[in-house]
């Protein structure tokens, strides 16, 4: 038996509903509070609001995305899956 076909599970894939481009932010850690301060591409400080995250799907603060691996995306994220997509590491 040969295994040339993609796994059956990949036939169940679909795109995310909203895929609007999101701005790239960098984060600086506030020395006092250790809270991140977000800076946009023009060097301006971005206010995330008192709540920190948005529930609007135009930003990836949603739950369930296996895609946005933490530390590799460029948007404050609230994804629900662990960034442990490297099975050699997982949560470590």
């Amino acid at each position, binding site marked *: 038996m040969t295994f040339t076909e993609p*796994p059956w599970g990949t036939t169940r894939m*679909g795109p995310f509903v909203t895929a609007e481009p999101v701005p790239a932010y960098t984060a600086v850690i506030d020395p006092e509070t250790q*809270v*991140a301060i977000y800076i946009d591409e023009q060097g301006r400080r971005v206010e995330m609001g008192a709540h*920190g995250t948005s*529930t609007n799907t135009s930003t990836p603060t949603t739950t369930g995305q296996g895609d946005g691996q933490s530390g590799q995306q460029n948007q404050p994220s609230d994804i*629900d899956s662990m960034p*442990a997509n490297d099975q050699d590491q997982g*949560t*470590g």
Partner: protein
Amino acid sequence: MTDDRPGAVLVLTNSLDATADVVLHILAERRVPVVRVDPGVDLYNGASLTTRYGTGGQRGALATPTRALDLRHVRSVWWRRPTAYSGPLELDGQDAKFAGSQMFWGVGGILASLPHAHYVNHPWQIRNGEYKPAQLAAALRAGFLVPETVITMDPAEARQFCTEQPAVYKPLWNTPYRDADDRAQQVWVREVNPTDITDAVSTCPHLFQARVEKSFDVRLTAVGARLFAARITSPELDWRRRQDLLSYEPISVPDAVAASVAGYLTDMGLVFGAFDFAVTADGAWYFLECNPNGQWAWLPSALSDPIALALADQLEKGPTA
């Protein structure tokens, strides 16, 4: 010599973790000392970590660009979303792999072995709890209702299961996947037509689960003994797909479900868990999964603020929580 000073809270996460910030704001208001670090990145950007073991016991120090931490005095550890270890960006191939592995086993091992610290959650328990088969086994032990489920590499078994009852497919792990146009893809839960099942099921294990005739979903976030349950009304079978169309309201948790949640967390060694349930018209709560490092800040603030406060309480209290 003992030292009764309350130690700092160590927060392990990447710098773009907006959820962590919600809790860090609360800890800052309470003047609880916090050290935030993303070891896989920061240790290549000015941070340092050294530990010693011997006749003097175990000691060590972590220094970040803004903090110095005596590792004997860590009150609690909040294991959020640290960047996966990869070694320095300047390296590649087997040298990068060597460095990344040493980081994983060395730094990961140090940070998982801090004496007396209260872990929310311990990383090895997170890892254990991420296995879907382990979740199902623990859910059964805890007395939850669990939908009929099969995990198989046998196409005939899969076809038969999906013929016997309406069923859905769920991956055992989410990996990044992109279509031909480089758009991010994800498996969305929807019903399986048995005639769609091919021999490509034999490539790897596939999980099929009876589709619960649910009237609504529940996300139950457990922080220690405190349970925060939200009823989610969604136009889609997979509510994650259109989070802009969801409505939420708090819902009380039946005593039997609360008891099972407590049993599950104890069994899995977890302090925090994000449980998903499908609830039928006659009030049966079916366990779907428990994410030991699930998100919660996407919930409306009326629902997420109490979770943030409960997490801050856990971290502030430390081992006495």
